[in-house]
């Protein structure tokens, strides 16, 4: 079994996109979108993070097991955040 070697071009493209998105996210912060500021910022961050994971960390070419592991991590992290927030957000709901 040999590993997949990602071509240099792709790395450069990813890098350029990441830099661009950093610029975009910084600029967007100055535009008033109400509560969507946070949404946009997180969406861009997630996009960037996916690029890093998929290409730099090679998840796109990795065996299935690795991808399952990554999804697992995201899933449990989401659980931690979601179930905690359920408590805080629903505390003000009427009984």
């Amino acid at each position, binding site marked *: *079994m040999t*590993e997949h*070697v*990602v071509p*240099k071009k792709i*790395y*450069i493209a*990813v*890098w350029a996109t*990441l*830099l661009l998105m*950093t*610029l975009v*996210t*910084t600029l967007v*912060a*100055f*535009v*008033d979108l109400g509560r969507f*500021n*946070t949404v946009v*910022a*997180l969406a*861009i*961050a997630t996009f*960037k*993070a996916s690029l*890093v*994971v998929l*290409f*730099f*960390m090679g998840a796109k070419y*990795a*065996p299935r*097991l*690795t991808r399952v*592991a*990554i999804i*697992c*991590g995201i899933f*449990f*992290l989401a659980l*931690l*955040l979601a179930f*905690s*927030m359920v408590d*805080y*957000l629903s505390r003000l709901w009427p009984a």
Partner: protein
Amino acid sequence: MSHSTEAGAVTHPALQTPYRDLDQQRETATLGMFVFLLTELMMFGGLFCAYLVYRTLYFPSFLEASRHMDLTIGAVNTAVLICSSLTMALGVQAAQQGRGKTVVPYMVVTLLFGCAFLGLKAVEYYHHWHAHEVPGFGFEFTSSVPGVDVGKVQLFFVLYFIMTGLHALHMLIGIGLVTWITICASKGRYTRAYHNPVENVGLYWHFVDLVWIYLFPLLYLISRMHL
């Protein structure tokens, strides 16, 4: 103990005890690294959870506190880390293609970027220190903005320092690891067949980058429209 010499298995000086062949060794190491990174993810996850809860509860104070972050340094640092990730990825690629020695310059550049990040971070901390924004060390904060509670602003700074501090600690460890890789690479340790340390340190480095990719918008960019 005789171990089965299956197809393609070469007895390599770098082959370690429980493994049958180098492929198995590399796959195991990579898996181990990813699993370790899951642990790291959940560790930062606990902090993100605390941050998320408090940010939701105390949004105005967090917003006000966030304005005291140095956006320029934050953004530049993000770029620096992204660049370091690129050089790291290229270094790993060199190792994968068996260009063992070319790993060295890439790693050195990565190191420089890493140090630059920490340097800028230190400058930033220093500014916070001067502005009395370090909780527990003469924290002072006055705000003319209505509705801002100093206690909650302090909470933001506490989380800020813990999150970026833990991240910086990871950077330090990363720098140590990259140095080690550089030394080993310059001795020509890594070949096309054996280079998992390079790959794993690469994974670690990208992960640290990844954490920062979230820290930057969460801490620096809560909302900047009314500067």
